[in-house]
């Protein structure tokens, strides 16, 4: 590991995992933490925390407030839990406009309502100009587990792999906004609360083995985490991974892989084969999930690896993304 922290260590990929393992897991080591789930499971409660530092604060499709609620609530939903209680801590830079703060908090309020959750505790710090970039938000959430036993450690050959919608929209939107690129007006972040989709699946009795929202590190990171944690091989048909034309376009121009781009309302599911068609129908009932798709299967071909298969019969490993998100150059 490097002597000083680099941006690559916050990428949700390989370097990030190394940092967490060598510094935090080493110090905090315990059974619950080491299960490496989206949220910790304590009895029938799920608990998760997340900090948000997005730039720009307001972007197509959402803002840092909506993101701060969705991020934590989605982690709870991924454990089959209904989000109930959140904390909200903000660190604000001196000089930040109150009007912007109010806009952010209003988006938090409306997103909490969608989840049926409330903020029950909070903290506010203001720091001198330059100490943070405008505003950082941390939320911690508690949820009540509705369907127990969902775990990234249990994916097996009995399961198929689904994705709920087209991938990469958040990463592509933020990148385009940050670089000041004039892009297609239809591209916007997928930032969205996932509990309604998860609830619909659970209400219908779909047996869910694992769920994970594909945030930093994208779908590629989730699939690799599952392959490793469950000691299986995940074989994915590249052509079945849903990607919108707008995201494909950005990837083409900048040399990104859509599977490595961050999402904020996209999740990967491992569900028992018999429930695949039903689950797909339920998901497609949600407007944003029109492109939901069964993308692959679980085998023992190369345990702990993810294989991407092309429509012309070739295959390759899909690795956990590494490095900073940088474009190729020529």
């Amino acid at each position, binding site marked *: 590991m490097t002597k000083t922290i680099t941006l690559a260590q916050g990428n949700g990929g390989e370097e990030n995992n190394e940092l967490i393992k060598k510094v935090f897991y080493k110090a905090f080591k315990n059974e619950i933490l080491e299960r490496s789930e989206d949220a910790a499971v304590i009895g029938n409660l799920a608990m998760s925390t997340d900090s948000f530092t997005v730039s720009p604060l307001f972007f197509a499709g959402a803002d840092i407030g909506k993101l701060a609620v969705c991020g934590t609530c989605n982690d709870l939903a991924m454990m089959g839990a209904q989000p109930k209680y959140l904390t909200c801590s903000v660190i604000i830079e001196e000089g930040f406009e109150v009007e912007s703060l109010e806009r952010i908090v209003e988006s938090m309020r409306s997103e909490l309502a969608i989840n049926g959750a409330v903020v029950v505790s909070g903290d506010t710090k203001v720091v001198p100009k330059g100490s943070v970039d405008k505003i950082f938000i941390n939320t911690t959430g508690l949820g009540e587990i509705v369907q127990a036993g969902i775990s990234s450690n249990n994916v097996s050959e009995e399961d198929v792999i689904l994705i709920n919608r087209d991938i990469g929209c958040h990463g592509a939107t933020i990148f385009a906004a940050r670089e000041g690129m004039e892009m297609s007006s239809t591209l916007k972040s997928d930032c969205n609360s996932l509990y309604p989709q998860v609830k619909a699946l659970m209400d219908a009795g779909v047996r869910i083995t694992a769920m994970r929202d594909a945030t930093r590190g994208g779908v590629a990171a989730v699939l690799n985490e599952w392959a490793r944690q469950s000691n299986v091989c995940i074989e994915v048909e590249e052509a079945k991974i849903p990607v919108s034309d707008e995201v494909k376009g950005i990837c083409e121009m900048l040399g990104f892989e859509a599977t490595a781009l961050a999402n904020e309302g996209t999740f990967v599911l491992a569900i028992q084969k018999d429930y695949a068609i039903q689950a797909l129908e339920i998901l497609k009932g949600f407007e944003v999930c029109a492109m939901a798709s069964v993308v692959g299967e679980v085998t023992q071909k190369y345990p702990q690896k993810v294989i991407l298969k092309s429509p012309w019969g070739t295959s390759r*490993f899909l690795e956990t993304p590494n490095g900073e998100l*940088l474009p190729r150059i020529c």
Partner: protein
Amino acid sequence: MNSLELKDLYDGFRDARTIKAYAKMIAKEAQKLPRPINIMEVCGGHTHTIMKYGILQLLPSNIHFVHGPGCPVCIMPKERIDHAYVLSMQESVILVTLGDMIKVPGSNGSLQDARSKGADVRFVYSPLDCLKIAQENPDKKVIFFAIGFETTTPMTAALLDTVIKQDVKNIFLHVNHVTVPEPMRALISDEACIIDAFLGPSHVSVISGSKIYEEFPRDWGKPIVVSGFEPVDVMQSISMIVKQFIEGRCEMEVEYKRAVTREGNLKAQALNDKYFHKVDFRWRGLGDIPQSGLGLRDEYDRYNAEKIYDAILPKEEIDDHKLCICGDILKGKASPPQCSIFGTACKPTTPVGSCMVSSEGACSAYYKYGNLV
């Protein structure tokens, strides 16, 4: 009429049926080859296409690929990466470069490391973005660390052209541009070289024309096909090379007819000639190759960061680790998995040799995509 969309430019060139049809045709034709052939794809972009789309899995056993030196980040010698690092650490300097260059480790670390120690390092998509950075930071010196082959050189020339015309006082250039034909010549001059034919990068020819490759069939007896970067382009180009061998021809052919002419982009060439002249360049993995680089002409010394900062820039040549076999990989004598440190000590996150540093390097492409071949 509907406007042209980006996907219109590649959709047909990734068509599964077309790719399969070419695979079948190549397999059939290749049976007539008198002996196995080794094709070098010169450009890292082609290496990327070949590995990402699994092209090697579609080829018969008597067609081999040798992955060439055409990745501007990979061929950058360590001492020049150190130049970038040293410059970035100077007081009131903003160091600007292109993409992957930020990740490559020099002897003190990468530009990413420099940034985490407080240096102002930025990457841009177009060198012309330096103008905006310079304008927003009038009290800083903006140094553009220019890298790339013939494809990116005109953009650097355009930057300097604008800097001079607008009399911008705070932009300087550290130039590391290189050209394609010289390393190709250097490789085939080596007696141990096993290359039988070349796949030439089409984007280079969009600028320099296909004429730059005419010497290879004529003077060296090596067929070459100038190819596009989509999988259908590459498959078609391979079939064209196979045909040349079967029919006993040795020619320069263009597969990428949709944008390549014999003469190329004359305006871009004139701009290059105005600001740059041929210089010797030391290639990581290949060593010194005479006249293979492009340097700023002497009359532009006052924009030349390499001369302005001469006193503080390290001069000593730094060789790669002795276990690294990148030189042999580039010559086709070895393939990445044959290297003893491939995937262990040398990985994309901790590259030891040149071919692992950028996503377009052969080792990096093998590490990422190729372990199923």
